[in-house]
């Protein structure tokens, strides 16, 4: 049933053709389907991230070059995706989503163990792959694909379908267990629904329901996840164990002060008191060495990227593209908020990297792929006939 609904032609009101841009000559940027503002800010962010990474990695150039190489690959992926038209994206969404689901099931059945959790799917010697990363994009697109076919705001029936689309991968990812990713994936799906104009009454209802479900969630958490929450509430309860990370990271940030201790001068990071300082906790290095000034500069840059992203989303013509673009950019913000929040001690420790700054290939590729899709949606506005 879902399938037939997705493939049947749209019935829409005729859209008034936009007069702007028709006569304009397409610029170079428009021809390569990239948004110069967004690209510029992303490149600036990545460059600054590499500078911080050099310090956070213990001044190992090899780490920085490896990261730069990944950025290169990710940029290529981004540029490639930017060339696809929204129609193509829409057509490919259902099969990619289904494939992603199947791969998640495969991970569950014979996935690789890494850090105590099953996250990787591997064809030995060929590729190592995290299907949950694919889901970060495929799932919101699937939700958007469904909702864009329905009259909006979404009705109960649509929400039920969306709940299934979101729920299946989230449960599979949460089982790996990967709390961070499952939260991000959920957020991506929920953002689509919210942006689609979900009624306030319903949002309120869900909020109450979620609050009621909290104890249930607590019971179903893994021990180490529960420990993280407890540690978040009182890090001093286990200063050498679970609380160590958060005590050391707040110490690093706090000791940075207003101007910071200077690049490569952070004692917390250079003397290895900070755990995971070049991956999830890289913000602490930033805070220690560049101080409040550096932190605010980074936050401002993130804010501008999010702003530009939302602007592009709002400019999209198709509901599908709009919803996907909006969800991608808001999810990007969630990365930032959760990561900085956890490292600075206002959120429990969840494995979420600081986008485009933390060391790690997979998340960079996913993130830039998302931006690629965002740009594709913006760049391929149909030039409707007069």
């Amino acid at each position, binding site marked *: 049933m879902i399938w037939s609904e997705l493939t049947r032609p749209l019935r829409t009101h005729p859209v008034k053709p936009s007069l702007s841009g028709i006569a304009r000559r397409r610029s170079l940027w428009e021809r390569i389907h990239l948004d110069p503002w967004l690209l510029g800010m992303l490149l600036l962010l990545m460059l600054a991230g590499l500078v911080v990474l050099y310090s956070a990695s213990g001044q190992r150039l090899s780490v920085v070059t490896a990261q730069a190489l990944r950025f290169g690959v990710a940029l290529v992926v981004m540029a490639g995706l930017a060339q696809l038209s929204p129609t193509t994206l829409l057509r490919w969404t259902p099969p990619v989503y289904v494939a992603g689901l199947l791969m998640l099931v495969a991970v569950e059945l014979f996935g690789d163990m890494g850090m105590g959790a099953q996250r990787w799917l591997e064809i030995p010697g060929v590729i190592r792959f995290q299907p949950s990363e694919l889901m970060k994009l495929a799932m919101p697109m699937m939700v958007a694909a469904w909702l864009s076919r329905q*009259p909006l705001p979404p009705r109960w029936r649509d929400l039920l379908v969306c709940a299934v689309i979101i729920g299946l991968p989230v449960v599979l990812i949460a089982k790996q267990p990967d709390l961070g990713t499952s939260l991000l994936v959920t957020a991506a799906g929920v953002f689509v629904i919210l942006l689609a104009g979900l009624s306030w009454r319903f949002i309120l209802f869900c909020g109450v329901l979620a609050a009621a479900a909290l104890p249930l969630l607590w019971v179903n958490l893994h021990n180490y996840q529960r420990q993280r929450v407890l540690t978040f509430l009182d890090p001093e309860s286990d200063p050498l164990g679970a609380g160590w990370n958060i005590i050391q990271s707040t110490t690093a*940030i706090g000791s940075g002060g207003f101007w910071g201790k200077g690049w490569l001068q952070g004692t917390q990071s250079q003397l290895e*008191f900070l755990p995971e300082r070049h991956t999830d906790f890289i913000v602490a290095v930033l*805070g220690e060495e560049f101080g*409040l000034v550096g932190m605010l500069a980074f936050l401002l840059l993130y804010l501008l990227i999010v702003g530009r992203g939302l602007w592009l989303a709002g400019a999209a013509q198709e509901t599908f593209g709009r919803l996907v673009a909006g969800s991608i950019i808001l999810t990007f913000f969630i990365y930032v*908020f959760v990561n900085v929040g956890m490292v600075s001690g206002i959120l429990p420790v969840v494995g979420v990297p600081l986008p485009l700054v933390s060391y790690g290939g997979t998340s960079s590729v996913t993130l830039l792929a998302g931006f690629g899709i965002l740009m594709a949606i913006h760049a391929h506005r149909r030039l409707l006939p007069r």
Partner: protein
Amino acid sequence: MRRRRQPLKNPEQELHAFRMRSLLAVLVVVCLTGLLGGRLFYLQVVQHEVYSTRSEKNRVRVEPLPPTRGLIYDRHGVLLAENRPTYNLTLVRERVADLDATLTLLVDLLEIPEEEIEAFRVRSRQRQRPFQPALLMSDLDEDQIARLAVNRHRLPGVEVEAQLLRYYPDAETMVHALGYVGRINAEELAGLDAGNYAGTHFIGKTGVERFYEDELHGQAGLRKVETNARGRVLRELGHTDPVPGKDLTLTLDSELQRLAVELLDGRRGSIVAIAPESGEILALASVPGFDSNQFVTGIDVASYRGLQEDLDLPLYNRAIRGHYPPGSTIKPFLALAGLAEGKITPNSTIRDPGYFQLPNDSRRYRNWLRWGHGRVDLERAIAVSNNTYFYTLAHDLGIDRIHENMSAFGFGQRVAHDVQGESDALMPSRDWKRGRFNQPWYPGETLSVGIGQGYWQLTPLQLATATAVLANRGEWVKPRLAQRIGQEEVPVELPDTPPDIMLENEGWWDRIFSGMEKVISGHEGTARRIGKDLEYRMAGKSGTAQVFSLGKDQKYNADEIQERLRDHALFTAFAPVEAPQIAVAVIVENAGGGSTHAAHLAKAMTDAWLLEDEAPDTEEVREVLEREDGRVTGN
């Protein structure tokens, strides 16, 4: 198939809804970013000081540099307490790949007992700073160190650490004079300067080691280092050298001390020798002793219980804490009190029928010689240790005057300058009895005190000190164990020295000395056996202290009484009489054979001190004692 009605989509409205929601999203995003910014402002500006300090504390570690404990020498520079390097086996868990395999290998190599391994496992389960070496085994011998060195490549993370440990070369002989050090316990820790003792594991527990703890310990230094999170020292930031403890030179003569212990020959007892002019304690022996080195390395429970439950009480320092009835040894002091108080003159006499009776009392207080000594004057009373003379004198003096005069000699008080754990013992008085028993003082009790029995108790150190004051003709010098602390001499005059004892007639001292000389050299002296080939003039007084009180008119037979219930033998002496160089007090518990036993030991001590070329032969003394034991010559 019926087609369901499909509501029309309205792109304009959808776009509008999206834009409203986006606007809202921007608002939320800005708010959340503001929240982050606020948190960062709080951490980095408001709480900056707190975290700055915390980060410094992370980075900078202060390592204490413990000072080296001062050495202890005897008066001739013989080392009595030294610091010996010992080697401990330590293990850094973070550097050991396979703990079980490493432990198994160590057990094979060093034959470590299973209990120690088990204890180590228990200890290592407790959380500790990473990269801190944990103690696995202490006091490795050379063979074990060699085996470890050969297998070093198989044992990453296993280290041999050097540590200085106190060592007493002649522990059993010296322990009661020196005391010993042991591990600092929680109670002691509470009273210590934590900074100064941060790197110190041992503290003086008893004796000189405890009394001069501050001087011997020295001042700890410290080293500020920058470490990384794994505890590895990266560089030194600052350094203060420790000030080593001061070396201590004692007044003890280790030869004389050893002689004293050998003379006691395993019998429970004590010998204290003092140089009267300087107050220097030359020997402070209490037998049996024990090996104090066990307490340094940590004594095992079984051995400790063995020491505690030993009937001979080896842990008990008899020289300074043993309470003994003085017996007749205090008769010269009482005679002096009689002269000072005008109750007797050197030439006044009494007639001794063999007993003394209080007025209106039928009870007879007996002389030790049943038929009496006949007419007795001062010198003869001391020489033959006549009881009747001293019953009479004690009765005339009364307990108040006895207490006052005897206290002037230091009886019933702590007399020494630097002897840790010294006991007051007991000089009875009217007040004391009322406080203790809530009873009045009875005249009969004064008579007991007059012959050194009853409530009166003294320590060997008190007896030696009083004898030294007597030898000095009343001039007080506080007995002391330390001669030099570092480079600083301990002065002869010390604070709180009791006032000197003045007599109206200086000649009275000589009459007392003469009586005491006759104890040894006189034809009826109680210790005449030791006076045979005396090469110098020696004054002394014998005494027996009853452990087991006899009923009226009962005569005791040493063989019938268990060894531990036999009388203690006491002797106190000084020599040479004209210029005293040594005062010595001897107490042999349950010697049985009378005071002569103790007298022989006292003479061996004075011989050793005064006759330089002639080393005293303890074998000879032992033979004499064996021959004479059991023969009673006096009391």
